[in-house]
C-alpha cells in the first residue's frame, strides 16, 4: 500500500550494482542485516518515516515497521542507553545519532555503560550495540555541527571505532559491526555519503579492523582516514609529478589500530605523515604517531609528522573553514620538507 508520505514510496537499495554511493551501501548493509536477523533494529531521530537525515535508512520503515525502525524523541542519552539495555537482553540495536556533535549528550550511555558492562559484569553480559554517527567538517555548518569525536572515543577500552570511507568498506564494516558482539562506533563522514565507488557484494571482505593500502609507494607513507584519504591520494598524485612515490594507507579502523600494516609500510618508505581532519592537539594523529615511533623507530629516517586541523573551533565563513582543515597542498608541502635531506 502506498502511503501518503512521500518517503514511504522509496525502496531500500536492492540493486547489486557495480557502483554504489556510500549511503546506498550503508542502506544495503542495514537492509540485509535486518532481513537476516529479527533481533536487529534501528532507532534514532528521523530514521523511520523521514528515512534518515542522509537517506541511510531509506525504505526500511515501510519494510520492517515501527518497532524495528523507531523514530525517537530528541533524547540522545536515553535512546542510546535504550540501545544498551536492549543489547543486554538479546537485541542487536543500531543507534543512529544524527551527528557526532549530538553524541556528546550520549557519552554516558556510550562510555559509562556500553564500553564497561561486559568487563564490570565479569564477562556475563555482552553489548552487541552499533552506534552510527556522521561527523566531520561539511559545508559551513559552523562550530557546533563540524566536530570530530575520534579523540574522545579512542581513549575508551571496550569500544571499537571504525571509520569507513568507501562504499565497499561502508557495506563491509557496517555488516561486520552489526555481527560483532561488542559495541562498535561507526563514524561516517558527512561529505562522503554521496561519493560513488566500486562495489562488489560477493567480494571477500577485509577484516573489520584492517587497514588498506590505497596506493603503493616507496618514499613516504601517508596515513589517513575518511575524507582525508582523498586528500592524501590527491597529494600523492602531485608528489608523483615531483618524482616522489607516496604510499597511502586508509586506516579504516582507529580502535584497534592496524599497526602492523603501518610498520610494514614504514619499513619500506622510512618516512610517515599522518593526515588528520581533527584538531592537531591530542587528536588521533598523536596516538598514531606515538605508536609508530614506539613500534618502528629504527626504520624511520625522520620523525612521524602530522598535517592536521587547526586548533580552533570550526568557523562559519567558507574561506576560513577551508583554512582550518588540511588540503592536498599542505600535505605536499610537509611531505617535501620531510623528504628534504637535512644538512
Amino acid at each position, binding site marked *: 500500500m502506498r502511503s501518503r508520505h512521500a518517503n514511504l514510496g522509496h525502496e531500500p537499495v536492492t540493486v547489486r550494482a557495480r557502483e554504489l554511493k556510500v549511503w546506498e551501501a550503508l542502506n544495503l548493509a542495514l537492509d540485509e542485516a535486518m532481513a537476516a536477523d529479527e533481533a536487529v533494529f534501528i532507532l534514532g531521530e528521523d530514521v523511520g518515516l523521514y528515512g534518515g537525515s542522509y537517506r541511510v535508512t531509506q525504505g526500511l520503515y515501510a519494510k520492517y515497521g515501527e*518497532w*524495528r525502525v*523507531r523514530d*525517537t*524523541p530528541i*533524547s540522545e*542519552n*536515553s*535512546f*542510546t*542507553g*535504550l*540501545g*544498551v*539495555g*536492549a*543489547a*543486554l*537482553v*538479546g*537485541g542487536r*540495536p543500531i543507534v543512529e545519532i544524527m551527528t557526532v556533535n549530538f553524541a556528546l549528550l550520549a557519552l*554516558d*550511555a556510550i562510555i*559509562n*555503560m556500553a564500553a564497561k*558492562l*561486559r*568487563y*564490570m*559484569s*565479569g*564477562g*556475563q*553480559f*555482552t553489548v*552487541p550495540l552499533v552506534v552510527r554517527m556522521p561527523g566531520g567538517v561539511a559545508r559551513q555548518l559552523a562550530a557546533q555541527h563540524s566536530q570530530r569525536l575520534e579523540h574522545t572515543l579512542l581513549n575508551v*577500552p*571496550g569500544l*571499537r571505532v571504525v571509520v569507513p570511507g568507501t562504499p565497499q568498506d561502508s557495506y563491509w564494516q557496517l555488516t561486520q559491526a552489526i555481527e*560483532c*558482539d*561488542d559495541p562498535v562506533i561507526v563514524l561516517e563522514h558527512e561529505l562522503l555519503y554521496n561519493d560513488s565507488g566500486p562495489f562488489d557484494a560477493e567480494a571477500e571482505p*577485509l*577484516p*573489520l*579492523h*584492517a*587497514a*588498506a*593500502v*590505497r596506493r*603503493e609507494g616507496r618514499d613516504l607513507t601517508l596515513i589517513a582516514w575518511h575524507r582525508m584519504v582523498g586528500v592524501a591520494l590527491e597529494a600523492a598524485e602531485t608528489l608523483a609529478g615531483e618524482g616522489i612515490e607516496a604510499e597511502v594507507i586508509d586506516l*579504516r579502523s582507529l580502535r*584497534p589500530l*592496524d*599497526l*602492523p*600494516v603501518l610498520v*610494514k609500510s614504514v619499513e619500506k618508505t622510512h618516512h610517515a605523515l599522518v593526515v588528520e581532519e581533527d584538531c592537531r592537539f591530542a587528536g588521533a594523529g598523536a596516538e598514531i604517531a606515538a605508536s609508530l615511533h614506539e613500534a618502528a623507530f629504527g626504520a624511520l629516517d625522520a620523525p612521524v609528522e602530522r598535517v592536521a586541523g587547526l586548533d580552533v573551533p570550526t568557523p562559519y565563513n567558507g574561506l576560513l573553514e577551508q583554512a582550518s582543515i588540511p588540503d592536498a597542498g599542505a600535505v605536499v608541502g610537509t611531505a617535501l620538507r620531510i623528504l628534504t635531506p637535512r644538512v
Partner: protein
Amino acid sequence: MQRELARQFLYDMMLARQFEQAAADQYQQGNIAGFLHLYPGEEAVAVGSLRAADAGDYVVSTYREHVHAMVKGITPRAVMAELFGKATGCSGGYGGSMHLFDREKRFLGGYAIVGETFPVAIGVGYWLRMTGQNDVVYCFFGDGAANQGTFHESLNMAALWKLPVLFICENNHYQIGTEIHRHTAVPEIWRHTTPYGIPGKRVDGMDVAAVYDATRDALAFVRAGNGPMLLECDTYRYRGHSMADSGAYRSALEVQELMARDPVRTFRERALAEGWIRETEIADIEKQVQETVADAVQFAEQSPDPDDVRKDVYAEPFRLYGGSR
C-alpha cells in the same frame, strides 16, 4: 497474610540488616574498599517490591543494591565475595559493591551514575515489548535521580511506546547531603509522571506489606500491557550516603524519629501480634541469618582474587592485518 510470606519478609529484612552491618564491619577492617553504600532503613522497599516479582522479571538497580540482588536470588556469598573483590563474586571481582550482576537471575546490574537505570530499563522494556514477552523490568532509582534528564526522557519514551517498566523510587529524602526540599521543586516524585500520562502512586516505604501489595497491583497493571507505572516508596536511610559520609547534615532527632518507624522491627511486632509468626521462629531466623552472613564473610575471605586484568574487555578478539586492496 500467609504465614510463609510473612516469614519470608522477616527473613529477608533481617538478613539485609545483618548483611549490611557485616559489610560495614568488613569495610572498617579494610577487607572492603571503594565506595560502599548501605541499605539499613530501606529494607522494606527491596523486599516488598521484589518478593512480588516473577522469576522472569528483570531488575535494573542503583549503586545501593546489595539487598535487591539478594532478594532477586543472588546468594549472600556471591554478593559478599563481590564486595571483597574476589573471583567468586557475582561479577567476578570486576564490578564491586556498585556493580552487581547475575545473568541467570536477570539482575542487570547496579549502575553508579545517578540516572542511568532509566535508559537501561526502557531498553529492556523495548525489547520485551518488541518481541512480545510478558516479563516486566524493575527500574530502581533514588529521589536525587528524578532531576536527571534521563528520568524525564525515559518516562516519555516508556509512555509513548507503552513499555513494561515498573519505576520504583526509593525516596530516602536525601541526594547525598542535600535534603529533598532543597533539590526538587515538587518533592512528591510520584507527581512527576503526570505530564507523561503514567500512573504514579506513593506508598509507605517503611511498611513491607504495603510495598508488596502496591507492587503486585502495579505489576498486574504493567503486565496487562497498559504501559509503565511508577511507585514512590517513602523511606529513609539510617547511615550516611556511603561509608565515607557521617551524615552530619541531619539532626540526631530526625534519625531517631525515622528509626521509630523501623521497617524490620515494626513488621516483626505486627507479625507477632497478628499471629503470622511465633517468637521461637523469629529466634530461628535470627540464628539462621547470623550463620548465613558469617558464612558469606568466611567464603569471601577464603576466595581467590581474580588474576586476569585483560579478561572480558571485548567479547571477540581483534582481527587486524589488512594490506593491499
